[in-house]
């Protein structure tokens, strides 16, 4: 059972774009941005013996061919890939705080197994969020309007992908109006949504 919690709710003020260039009163639209995945990395400053973890840890899967151990935590629902060098990648958290909490809990688990673990260099690497627009989107028009930045290959993937260079975020736009945003942290993701909303509003499809 996947827990999807609505973590942030942003009010985006949108000016309706009209050719007579009269600025209408601000329409306030509430868009719920749901963060589904936060990926973070941290380091324990010591070498970890994967065999020991695999034998004595609970809820672990050992993958010797790759050289890592997967440990799943229940409380913040997190899956961590543990490498023998001490680098750990945590995926599955639903917010940045939860990611930090889960990482700390994981480090505590490893400490209990007997390793001299030091919790250092925690960094959130990737945040994936989904958002639904209240309208459907005409993808072909959207791609034409944003020619080099947006790319749409219907044979390969049904979504148009829009890369925002300065935010290092990628937005995938589907024709039903749902979008998925991936970015380096939650703030960038929110800014990406704000940036892309007017572009999507221009290309909304009235045929529903």
């Amino acid at each position: 059972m996947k827990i999807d919690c609505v973590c942030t709710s942003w009010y985006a003020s949108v000016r309706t774009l009209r050719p007579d260039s009269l600025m209408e009163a601000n329409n306030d639209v509430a868009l719920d941005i749901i963060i589904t995945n936060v990926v973070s990395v941290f380091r324990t400053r010591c070498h970890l013996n994967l065999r020991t973890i695999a034998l004595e840890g609970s809820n672990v899967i050992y993958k010797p061919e790759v050289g890592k151990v997967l440990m799943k935590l229940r409380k913040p629902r997190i899956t961590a890939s543990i490498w023998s060098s001490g680098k750990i990648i945590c995926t599955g958290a639903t917010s940045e705080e939860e990611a930090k909490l889960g990482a700390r809990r994981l480090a505590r688990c490893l400490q209990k197994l007997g390793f001299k673990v030091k919790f250092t260099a925690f960094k959130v690497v990737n945040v994936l969020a989904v958002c639904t627009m209240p309208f459907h989107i005409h993808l072909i028009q959207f791609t034409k309007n944003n020619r080099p930045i947006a790319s749409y290959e219907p044979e390969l993937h049904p979504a148009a992908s829009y890369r925002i260079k300065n935010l290092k975020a990628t937005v995938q736009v589907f024709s039903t109006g749902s979008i998925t945003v991936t970015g380096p942290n939650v703030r960038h993701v929110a800014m990406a949504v704000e940036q892309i909303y007017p572009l999507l509003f221009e290309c909304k499809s009235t045929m529903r």
Partner: protein
Amino acid sequence: MPGLNIVRGRCGDPLPKVQCPNHPDALLVEDYRAGDMICPECGLVVGDRVIDVGSEWRTFSNEKATKDPSRVGDAQNPLLNGGDLTTMISKGTGAASFDEFGNSKYQNRRTMSSSDRAMLNAFKEISTMADRINLPRNIIDRTNNLFKQVYEQKSLKGRSNDAIASACLYIACRQEGVPRTFKEICAVSRISKKEIGRCFKLILKALETSVDLITTGDFMSRFCSNLGLPKQVQMAATYIARKAVELDLVPGRSPISVAAAAIYMASQASAEKKTQKEIGDIAGVADVTIRQSYRLIYPRAADLFPPDFKFDTPVDKLPAL
């Protein structure tokens, strides 16, 4: 020589420049058969005994005599190869070219242009692939150019050359306005669709170009002729597909699937009915996909047909799947 005026160049060296003495500005016409340079204004023969640069022997394609007396090789491809002018020693024919044991004296032809060997290989591969789907020369040239640009950039160096070649072929077809589906390129290449798709995106990023979006009309003529459908049906299918996209009845569907469904609808309404399986085979779409897209356009079938279409099966009798 009568027409030779010596014009002093900037550095003082004499630059021999052939001009007509009466008309120094006239561009001289070359008569290659007689070997003359003639002034067009007055007809004075200015240059004499000009060397003929035409070919020494005329070669005919039907005569494949063992000896080709031409002393020059193939036309160079300077745009693509960087012009190597090496000399190679071929295998000897007389008795003197073999030493005691029967081995030829001059053993291996030295490897020519080892730096471009991979590129030449790729060009050969591109030519083979294009030949399988009968692509014209201009697309092959464009593909070669793209490959050369990508190869020189070295940003995709780790990828298999065949994958890059296939992706270049796909891009070239798109750029010429006659796109081929990824599946069609897969059919003539040993690379998977996924890998070709990846290389395609990487090449677009590396060369900083973009391509136009595919439309349903690009594939109609090919699919319909492969199915043997008459022109009327093809035109009807083109109209149906275009109308369906305009009315946004099929959001998020690949244009190929929409085209296949349109062909199905048009053929079912005409005298030549094709099954979904046949259309799926030609277009490279699964027949369930055709069924899905067909379900989306079926409700508005009456609006989608062109106004002057002759129905063999009326609209309400069309199969509803």
